[in-house]
């Protein structure tokens, strides 16, 4: 299972991820990203990749969690 993971220490709330993937995450009331959909299915994969790619501080990543 591919998971969308946020490094909370690194997130600065620039909000670009929300612009490209509002169906997967949002900027919360504290002003930082909060992931709504952790487990990424095939249909959401391209959007999740886009979110990870646009994060300017590389706080989002996709990990393949099959092993664990």
């Amino acid at each position: 299972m591919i998971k969308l993971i946020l490094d909370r220490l690194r997130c600065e709330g620039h909000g670009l991820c929300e612009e490209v993937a509002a169906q997967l995450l949002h900027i919360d009331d504290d002003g930082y990203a909060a992931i709504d959909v952790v487990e990424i299915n095939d249909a959401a994969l391209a959007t999740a990749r886009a979110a990870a790619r646009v994060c300017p501080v590389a706080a989002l990543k996709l990990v393949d969690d099959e092993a664990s």
Partner: protein
Amino acid sequence: MTSVPKSGIDLWADDVLVDPYPAYRALRELGEVVYLTHSKLYALTGYDVIKDALADPTRFSSAQGIGFNDGVNQALKGTSLASDPPEHTQLRAALSENLTPRALRGLSEQIKADAQALVARLVKQPSFDAIDEIARRFPIGVVADLVGFQGEARANMLRWGQAAMEVIGPMNRRTAENFPIAGELYGYCSQITQEALTPGSVGWGVFEAEKKGLVTEGAARHIIHQYLGAGLDTTLAAIGNIIALFGRFPDEFAKVREDLSLVPSAFNEVLRYYSPVHVWSRVATQDVEIGGMKIPGGSRIAVILGAGNHDPLHYKNPEVFDVTRNPIDHLSFGYGPHGCAGQGLARMEGAAIIEAFAIQIKSFRIGDVARVPSNVTVSFDTVPVLELEAV
């Protein structure tokens, strides 16, 4: 393993600095990694290799400095710019805490109103220089108000900010001439006191945080130094580029006028099309293989952000200025742990100027634009706005 292609192009030659894109293309066409024989640097020229390197501080380190001469790299020791995780993480947090979009939330309306007021004054004139009247003026006001500067500092901010970027270049005449001016900025910041700053400003708040032990002792002055060093010349370039590009491509300006939702996309495209900071540096901590080519450990690397932003493998027709493109993943703010800490503020400033132009100006023409060579920041020195027709 194939050998790294070599080029005699000097990134800091005057003719390259005033029009760098033909040189970037020539380098990119040689390879995504090119050895620059003149400067003895390994250059990264392609979008993907640049992004991968910026995301990987373990192999592409900032700890030996991000500049191209030993003096500046020594001077930057111990700052967030010139460190790697884990040391970097806390330094970065102290620097960026007051610059996150959340922290700046209250400032956005003021910046928009300031931009509208500035443009409202200018549209009454038949012509003006957009660099003097907007690009040099607007970011100084924003940063001075934010940090809480008054008096002497305000008058010197532009010179100081330009010198702080210039000295990041290789040890050429421009770097040598600017070290004393960058030193004035350092001297000023090393003596600044909380009382000199406007109560309630971000600069004042950094001193409060230091008093409470929330940032390490002495960090407040470093942070203020970085706000000034990084926040001016870069934004000056970006704002000048907005007006130069709208003047050169009036049809694209018309699209923004007709649809203000294009403002963020237009600013991203301005930043992609002309990168304010064209080159930055890292050091390879170990032998690194890229596309079958080896960069030896210990090599200094030139990360050519401007070349990556025009990589046709990533951006279709990169030479076309298209305000609908929305290249949200451009490299002009860098990327990764060292990605520009002030990008939220820069976006606010850029969007405010674009919006004010789009709302108040029907059309304009630009006269002959000019650049002066500068080591790190590629900006226009003059952009005459002519035949302006207000709404």
